[in-house]
């Protein structure tokens, strides 16, 4: 009798993508159980997504009903292309990907890779951004329908569906490949360069966009949009419109292009997925085992910091400083700051300058008149972005923070040390940024202006983010993937980041106003005033937030400890 039972009487049922989707929904649902705040955040996130989707829908649908559809193909190619690019790059730079279903958890199950990939892919589609993108792009269906009737609309539906699949696959493939690269410490420098290149791609695109705005003759861009329409960036979005415009032969070819791109991306993803599943165990990587020199204390402090105080504060700073470099997650953030810090102000100011002169002359030749207000504003943005990295600074540590609770580290001391360690990396970066901007704008006299604005907003940001990090901390999953986030945390992260950036920006606005109003006097006052403002704000923030931290250390520890 027992023997019969061992034989697999019933063949194992096939696992389909449906199971993965249901698993994801169940995990999401269980995460919400009894967590009113998380539900509220999720609903708010969904509403924002819906609002963006509605706006996108209108934007995509308008060309179908205005101007007899002259710009339909152009809007589809450029708008859709931008969306694909966003899905490709934004997860890398800002948001991360939802790892509710961590591939490593499926490593032991007897699942064929094809099943696993389709399942995870289907689960990835169940997310607010994916649904919002789909809704927005249905505006193109309306356009195609208005211009070419039912047949065009139908083709466009297929195109849009395939296009959204393409977007999600692109996000997965890129983050997955990039994550496994960052995991091995040897290629981290290469990874940094790659990210920089990826962000640099935004540059030319923006220049094209600006010159497009300047051209009164939009039709000259038709050629460009046609070319884009034949790449995977534009192909899915223009298929239906081609039908509407009488080029029915183009539609199947464009859908084929989309399908091929999709297949390639999924194939790439599935390959890096395999390495993520089996490679997770050896995440550490071998280190060169040189013999330690000197006592334990002098090993803790970097060689460049022999002057540092050998006490609690010094130890906190030294450990934090080492962590900003040794923790892949933190390092990815530093790289982001460096890239954003250089590119955004250069583009905003050069682009803005070219915009105001309204001429087709080359950028960055000093012919345009950069405005002090705009420069200060872009500096403010960089400072805000740099400081917001600390919005979940305790989340980086996770349960290791218990050591500080047990040792009874005072909140003020803790926050000041964390600010100091982060500033060791960021302040030199900001200094370089301010010099580079002044030089690129051909206004060397403005170094004071740029540096002052940067330091003021950075300092204010440190203060604001101290509060956010103490009150709004959340756990990050304990994986080596720097882009992984918990469910719900994605929305929470977005909101906290937005809130912190907004408050910081408000706190630093006086610098912009002063730059706009005071004129030349400000060029000399900006640096000392800005630095003092930033330093004062940071110290005040550490003082006040430290008090809060003293009262809720155990709660903070519970918030950053991942639930198992």
């Amino acid at each position, binding site marked *: *009798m*027992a*023997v019969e*039972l*061992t034989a697999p009487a019933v063949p194992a049922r096939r696992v389909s993508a449906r199971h993965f989707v249901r698993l994801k929904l169940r995990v999401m649902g269980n995460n919400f159980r*009894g967590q009113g705040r998380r539900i509220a955040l999720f609903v708010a996130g969904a509403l924002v997504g819906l609002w963006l989707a509605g706006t996108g829908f209108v934007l995509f649908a308008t060309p179908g009903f205005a101007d007899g559809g002259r710009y339909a193909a152009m809007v589809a190619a450029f708008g859709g292309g931008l969306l694909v690019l966003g899905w490709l790059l934004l997860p890398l730079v800002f948001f991360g990907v939802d790892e509710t279903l961590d591939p490593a958890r499926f490593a032991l199950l007897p699942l064929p890779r094809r099943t696993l990939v389709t399942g995870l892919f289907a689960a990835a589609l169940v997310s607010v951004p994916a649904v919002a993108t789909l809704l927005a792009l249905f505006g193109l269906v309306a356009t195609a329908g208005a211009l070419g009737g039912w047949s065009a609309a139908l083709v466009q539906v297929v195109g849009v569906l395939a296009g959204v699949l393409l977007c999600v696959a692109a996000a997965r493939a890129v983050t997955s490949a990039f994550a496994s690269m960052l995991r091995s410490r040897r290629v981290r420098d290469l990874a940094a360069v790659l990210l920089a290149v990826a962000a640099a791609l935004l540059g030319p695109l923006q220049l094209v966009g600006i010159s497009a705005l300047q051209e009164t003759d939009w039709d000259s861009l038709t050629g460009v949009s046609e070319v884009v329409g034949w790449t995977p960036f534009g192909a899915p979005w223009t298929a239906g419109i081609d039908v509407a415009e009488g080029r029915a032969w183009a539609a199947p070819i464009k859908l084929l292009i989309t399908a091929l791109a999709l297949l390639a991306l999924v194939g790439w993803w599935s390959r890096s997925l395999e390495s993520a599943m089996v490679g997770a165990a050896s995440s*550490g*990587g071998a*280190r*060169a*085992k*040189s*013999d*330690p020199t000197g*006592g*334990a*204390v*002098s*090993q*803790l402090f970097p060689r460049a910091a022999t002057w540092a105080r*050998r*006490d*609690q504060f*010094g*130890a*906190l700073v*030294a*450990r934090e400083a*080492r*962590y900003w470099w*040794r*923790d892949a997650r933190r390092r990815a953030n530093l790289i982001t700051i460096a890239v954003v810090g250089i590119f955004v102000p250069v583009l905003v100011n050069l682009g803005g300058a070219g915009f105001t002169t309204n001429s087709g002359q080359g950028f960055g030749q000093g012919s345009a008149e950069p405005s002090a207000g705009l420069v200060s504003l872009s500096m403010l943005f960089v400072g805000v972005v740099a400081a917001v990295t600390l919005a979940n600074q305790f989340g980086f*540590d*996770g*349960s*290791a923070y*218990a*050591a*500080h*609770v*047990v*040792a*009874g*580290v005072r909140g003020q001391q803790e926050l000041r040390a964390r600010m100091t360690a982060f500033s060791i990396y960021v302040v030199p970066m900001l200094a370089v940024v301010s010099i580079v901007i002044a030089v690129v704008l051909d206004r060397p006299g403005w170094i004071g202006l740029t540096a002052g604005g940067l330091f003021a907003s950075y300092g204010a940001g440190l203060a604001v983010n101290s509060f956010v990090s103490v009150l709004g901390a959340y756990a990050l999953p*304990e994986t080596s993937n720097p882009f992984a986030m918990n469910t719900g945390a994605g929305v929470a992260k977005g909101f906290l980041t937005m809130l912190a950036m907004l408050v910081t920006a408000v706190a630093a606005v006086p610098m912009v106003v002063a730059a706009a109003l005071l004129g030349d006097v400000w060029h000399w006052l900006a640096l000392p005033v800005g630095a003092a403002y930033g330093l004062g704000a940071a110290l005040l923030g550490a003082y006040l937030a430290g008090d809060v931290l003293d009262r809720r250390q*155990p*709660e903070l*520890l*519970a918030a950053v*400890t991942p639930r*198992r």
Partner: protein
Amino acid sequence: MTDEHPALSLRGLAKRFDGKVAVAGVDLDVPAGSFYGLLGPNGAGKTTTLSMAVGLLRPDGGQARVLGQDVWVDPVRAKQLLGVMPDGVRLFDRLSGAELLAYHGLLRGMDPAVVDQRTAELLDVLALTDAGRTLVVDYSAGMKKKIGLACALLHGPRLLVLDEPFEAVDPVSAALIRDILARYVASGGTVIFSSHVMEVVERLCSHVAILAEGTIKRVGTIDEVRGKRSLEDVFVEVVGGRTATGEELAWLSN
């Protein structure tokens, strides 16, 4: 002066998570100089109790005193007397062993020279010197336990609170940890640790408490608790386990 107080004294400690009672009022006195074992099955509330006792988790009610100092009223004084090794909590594992110990020493406000000397000794005794500059994240499970113990011992605490110190540790490392703890108690320290390994508790402990379903079921010196039977029998009886009859899971046997 403080010797009149028990090393650790818990009164009515209670904690619920999402409406579910994890610890329902624990009273416990750990005499100074004792080697105390906190026994209990998985999910009994051992980790929750110890976390509340050392200031890592805020209790819903009750008191915890370390040598007379209230952990939740005057945390700084109490925490100076404590050495803690939590379970399931990460260390700052992107430091090497020596760096981690130096960090803990300075966090505790120790003199750098003393930190250097004790770190060298601890690494030597715990056989971790060979690891050199290897990051703690790349250590094996046993090595992680040992470095965690070293972190808890470094500042010379009067009371050591260890959560599952023998979990996932190979016999060689376990023997080493046992010896160090025995020496620590012999020289006047107090240890309380949680475990569900009977042999270790029977071999080491002077006192035992059995915790199940969030309350203390048995407490006393080890002889009082086990009487004439083995500790395991008492434990299974108290916890209310079942024994397999041989009828169920018949398909396991071919």
